[in-house]
């Protein structure tokens, strides 16, 4: 069986600064992997490469066996056509730290946009699905509200519904609770837990150690552009093998 996600020797530079220095990672259908690590270690960059929000200079990323973003023709590596990349981006869903809801559309409108424009659904069909997912994140009653009328936690749940409604094979979460007031963090984490229980495959960048411990099937510790250590949450948090990880866990709060 092919892995859902297969990252091989991923290298990424910003200008001359290499921020990913050869990352390898594979993931199976239904895996929930948390990515932890100190600021600047390359967690966000890794997620952004997976859905081609960033270009990368070396290595390959494949989802369900299809190579993402680049193809090698006659020994020359080149970017795939933009249409193809857009189609591949729809294989993954992403939730951002800053939510990035479209402010001029209602909650339902935000969820419907991709369904109508990318999945080519009729508006009625899209509305039905949007309502189903808004209900799932507990916001059906807010479907006609604009992002500016919603709390941060509610906005993030709409953003998750918008991503999930596209039926991605893999969800990417980038510190989705970091911009939230502490009392709103939990409602968002509960939604993600629910998705995990449904078998959604997820890569979750987080600073919430307790959550990572509870929800993940595997944890990856990023350190200076490389994977410093990985394993099951129990081993990682309770018996870190590397000095680096032990150090990192000491400085982070586990609550």
């Amino acid at each position, binding site marked *: 069986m092919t892995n859902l996600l297969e990252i091989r020797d991923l290298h990424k530079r910003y200008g001359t600064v290499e921020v990913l220095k050869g990352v390898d990672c594979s993931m199976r259908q239904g895996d929930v992997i948390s990515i932890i690590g100190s600021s600047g270690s390359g967690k966000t960059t890794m997620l952004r490469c997976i859905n*081609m929000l960033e270009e990368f200079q070396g290595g390959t990323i494949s989802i369900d066996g299809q190579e993402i973003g680049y193809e090698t023709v006659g020994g020359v590596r080149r970017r795939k056509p933009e249409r193809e990349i857009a189609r591949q981006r729809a294989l993954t869903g992403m939730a*951002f730290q800053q939510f990035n809801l479209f402010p001029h559309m209602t909650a339902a409108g935000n969820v419907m*946009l991709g369904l109508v424009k990318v999945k080519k659904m009729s508006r009625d069909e899209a509305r039905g699905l949007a309502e189903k997912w808004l209900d799932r994140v507990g916001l059906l009653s807010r479907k006609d509200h604009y992002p500016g009328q919603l709390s941060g936690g509610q906005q993030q749940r709409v953003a998750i519904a918008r991503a999930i409604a596209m039926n991605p094979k893999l969800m990417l979460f980038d510190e989705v609770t970091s911009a939230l007031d502490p009392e709103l963090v939990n409602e968002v984490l509960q939604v993600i837990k629910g998705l995990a229980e449904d078998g959604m495959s997820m890569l979750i960048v987080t600073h919430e150690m307790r959550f990572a411990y509870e929800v993940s099937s595997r944890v990856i510790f990023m350190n200076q552009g490389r994977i410093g250590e990985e394993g099951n949450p129990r081993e990682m948090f309770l018996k870190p093998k590397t000095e680096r990880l032990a150090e990192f866990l000491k400085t982070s709060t586990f609550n």
Partner: protein
Amino acid sequence: MTYSLNFAAVWRSFDLLLQGLALSLGLAVVAILAGCVIGLITAFGLVSKSGFFRKPAGLYVTIIRNTPILVLVLFSYFALPELGVRLGKIESFVLTLAIYSGAYLAEVFRGGLIAIPPGQREAGLAIGLTEMQIRTSIIIPLMLRNVLPSLGSTMISLFKDTSLAAAIAVPELTFEARKINVETFRVIETWIVASCLYVATCSLLAALMRAVERRLAVPR
């Protein structure tokens, strides 16, 4: 010598002024609509990462914004025919005002584009939209909301610039007023009435733009 006001002669020619006003509005609407299209395309050029689009867009804006509009009007009416492009008065003026407004509107639109957080585009990409779909569904609607206040005042100044068409004898409001002035010698009355027509029209335009602004305002 005292000048006693007498509007009778001006009222007699009032329908000429109204016809002039109608033409002024017509010139403005066509030119500004074309200018919006030119301005939108140019604005995307101005914010493009690629110099291939950015440089020509920048050159166009620089040249047009640094040339007085009267010079552009005279150039296209008197100089273009020498270069083999022969246009009627009205066509020549509309073309000039469209190109002129394109440059100003490009700057207005650019301001609206750079105020949009990059996360909006990325969120669009993440759900699989193409760059073009992102532009039409997200970027342009947000940009328009950002620029509506300054767009209104730009449009009003472009409308007033139609008075320069009088220089090439296009029979718009200013031209008609000057004709009435010459024929009736009611200098003050004629220009008071003409000014009032400009003020009234511009106020209406401003009210209209504010209504659009309210209509499109994002609820919060």
